């Protein structure tokens, strides 16, 4: 049957199970929007800025494990997506990004709203396409969806010329698998690598598991738990690995790296074997690579071969899906009693897990750590939390304990301020029954605050907790530590967030003392729509502990202990 290119876009998307698209119409994508009402199975969410569309698609993908789809017009519409696409790229999130392009005869003429989008997006996508013929739209979209979600997931761009959307051709759904001869998401390790890994694991006295985003992406949480129960190897997590292994498990050590617990980092430095599961030895995780875990043999399980030996040379590199790999390793590894190693780690731990929160000076002010700890308690640790980037993000990792997979969504690799609110909208669209909380700083929240209107238009219930200290908090902290306390351009004068909520016709609440938190959280949860809570926290608080950028992992700055009089 004859279909227009615009119709084919929606035919293919709905065939492939896409039921939400986040986007913003404009000239070059108008044909696609014109055909949208014919496909009621696809819900369109109108964003307020295309960056929001990309973050929403990303949040949708991270919450559900399915591909998130965003759509924008040519030129400024497409370039506005860039930050969101780069965020998804760094954190391996499967996103399909469809942009309109000027008509094919005008490409290359600097036409109105023309940008070389495939060129702009080249380094921040896994693959990209420019489609100028109607009969290429269906195959291209199928390939793009497949590439985005297979192997190491990532964003894929499909830029479709306006005349290709307007033209028509014969269309028949083709169910055959895509043919991409150069694309090999199926690379797998050789059997001898597994044998060497099992030998090292069984011989290790002080092993540690470093669990990354790959645990969540490959759905390996259960088999990781089985692996840990059998081998009794303690688990440290990267920022994006959090929630992949239950925080309440006795062998969960929490987060490693720059703002990880100092005893976790010390344990890594003392370990004799590191099992890196679906993580990439990011600089925020390893500190100084020259002094990183020198006593440890290293086994790296990773779907992307280019990550192996990139930052840290390893002894065994296993290319493959983490879940499959653990299933292969599991029968070979031996049960071990590692109580001596556990006891040593507990010793390193001392009271430090609770120390920071205990040592906050009692000045009657509200502390972000208290706020987040209380949010964890009052939501029974079950909320799907989406954080922005900065101090609050690190406090979240320290004081909100996640026991269930995919319950923390945060921008790790790119560290994108403004991520939280739009990503939360995407997550809520994917998981409408989840209680979704945004935890954002006053700075990051304002970067994409316009998306509050999107929450209202879509009638979504999202809890927005603004950790408001009137500063770009982490910038201020670095200025305090490394720039002689010169707070250059980090203090912020903010609008009244309660009135801002009011202007959107949603509830705005304010908390200034700790004893108001419980009641406020209760009221927020009772609201039918989105609610904004302005937590007026201590202005000059600091995230401890901290490894200064590039310093040795074991050289952490701890919170100063007040001298007792």
């Amino acid at each position, binding site marked *: 049957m004859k279909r227009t290119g615009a119709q084919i876009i929606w035919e293919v998307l709905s065939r492939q199970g896409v039921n939400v698209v986040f986007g913003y119409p404009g000239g070059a994508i108008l044909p696609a929007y014109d055909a949208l009402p014919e496909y009621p199975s696809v819900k369109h969410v109108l964003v307020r800025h295309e960056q929001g569309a990309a973050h929403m698609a990303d949040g949708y993908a991270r919450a559900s494990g399915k591909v998130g789809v965003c759509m924008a017009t040519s030129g400024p519409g497409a370039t506005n997506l860039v930050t969101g696409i780069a965020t998804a790229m760094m954190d391996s999130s499967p996103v399909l990004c469809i942009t309109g392009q000027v008509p094919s005869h005008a490409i290359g003429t600097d036409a109105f709203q023309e940008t070389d989008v495939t060129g702009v997006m080249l380094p921040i996508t896994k693959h990209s396409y420019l489609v100028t013929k109607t009969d290429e739209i269906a195959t291209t979209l199928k390939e793009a969806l497949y590439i985005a979600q297979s192997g190491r997931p990532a964003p894929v761009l499909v830029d479709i010329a306006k005349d290709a959307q307007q033209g028509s051709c014969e269309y028949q759904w083709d169910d055959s698998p895509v043919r991409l*001869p*150069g694309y090999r998401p*199926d690379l797998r390790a050789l059997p001898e690598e597994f044998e060497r890994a099992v030998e090292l694991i069984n011989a290790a006295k002080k092993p540690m598991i470093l669990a990354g985003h790959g645990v969540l992406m490959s759905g390996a949480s259960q088999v990781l738990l089985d692996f840990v129960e059998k081998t009794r190897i303690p688990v440290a997590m990267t920022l994006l690995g959090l929630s992949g292994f239950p925080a309440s498990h006795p062998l969960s050590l929490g987060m490693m790296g720059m703002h990880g617990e100092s005893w976790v980092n010390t344990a890594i430095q003392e370990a004799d074997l590191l099992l890196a599961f679906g993580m990439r030895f990011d600089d925020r995780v390893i500190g100084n690579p020259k002094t990183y875990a020198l006593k440890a043999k290293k086994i790296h399980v990773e779907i992307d*071969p280019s990550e*192996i030996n990139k930052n840290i*040379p390893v002894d065994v590199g296993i290319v493959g899906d983490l879940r499959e790999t653990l299933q292969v390793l599991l029968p070979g590894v031996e049960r071990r009693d590692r109580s001596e190693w556990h006891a040593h780690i507990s010793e390193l731990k001392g009271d430090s897990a609770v120390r920071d929160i205990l040592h906050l000076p009692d000045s009657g002010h509200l502390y972000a750590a208290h706020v987040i700890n209380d949010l964890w308690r009052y939501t029974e640790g079950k909320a799907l939390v989406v954080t922005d980037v900065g101090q609050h993000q690190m406090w979240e990792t320290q004081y909100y304990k996640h026991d269930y997979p995919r319950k923390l969504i945060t921008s790790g690799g790119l560290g994108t301020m403004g991520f939280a609110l739009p990503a939360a909208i995407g997550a809520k669209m994917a998981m409408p029954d989840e209680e979704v909380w945004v935890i954002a700083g006053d700075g990051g929240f304002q970067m994409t605050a316009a998306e509050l209107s999107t929450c209202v238009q879509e009638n979504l219930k999202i809890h927005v907790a603004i950790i408001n200290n009137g500063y770009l908090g982490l910038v201020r902290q670095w200025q305090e530590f490394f720039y002689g306390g010169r707070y250059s351009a980090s203090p912020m004068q903010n609008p009244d967030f309660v009135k801002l909520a009011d202007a959107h016709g949603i509830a705005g609440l304010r908390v200034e003392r700790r004893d108001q938190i419980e009641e406020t959280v209760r009221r927020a949860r009772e609201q039918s729509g989105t609610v904004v809570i302005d937590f007026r926290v201590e202005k000059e608080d600091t995230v401890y502990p901290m490894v200064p950028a590039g310093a040795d992992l074991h050289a952490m700055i701890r919170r100063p202990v007040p001298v007792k009089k």
Partner: protein
Amino acid sequence: MSIPHTFVVYVEDKPGVLNRVVSLFRRRGFNIESLSVGHTDRSGVSRMTIVMEAEEAAARLVEANLYKLVNVLRVEELTDSDAVLRDLALIKVRADTERRAQVLQIVKVFRARVVDVVTDALIVEISGSEDKIDGLVDVLRPFGIIEMARTGTIAMKRGAEAPSIQPHFVHARVPEVPANRSPEDDLPSEERSPH
């Protein structure tokens, strides 16, 4: 230690592929010494020869990243000892009637060819290893080189073997019995061998 690495990269002949490959080197901060691109015996498949100076670990990283490009079919690293490496140059050199005989003598010694002659100059064509061409250029320079064009290295492994589809950069392989793919799938459909 930084040494020259020669990669032969088979790519799908599609728009933007050269850009993707070159962009990868730029993005990861690697320098390309020479790059040459041409057709293969199969339509739809191009072959790039890329020479880069790099340490071993960096070369492995480049290889792994090349492999990640969707349009890259195969990556093969060749070394001097197991491959034939060739460069082609056209050199326009000043040669008036007085000195022409001298130039022709040199051309003969280097087993080069003269492909164009005018009164005052001639064009010499030479193919061979980089060193050999550098040698000829050095000897011709005193006569006056007017212009020169070089192709950059192209390379091919010695012996009867076809290039392997198995990557060497990590201990990994394409599954032996791929669910939906055979090595023949590397070829564009119209070019598949008939058996």
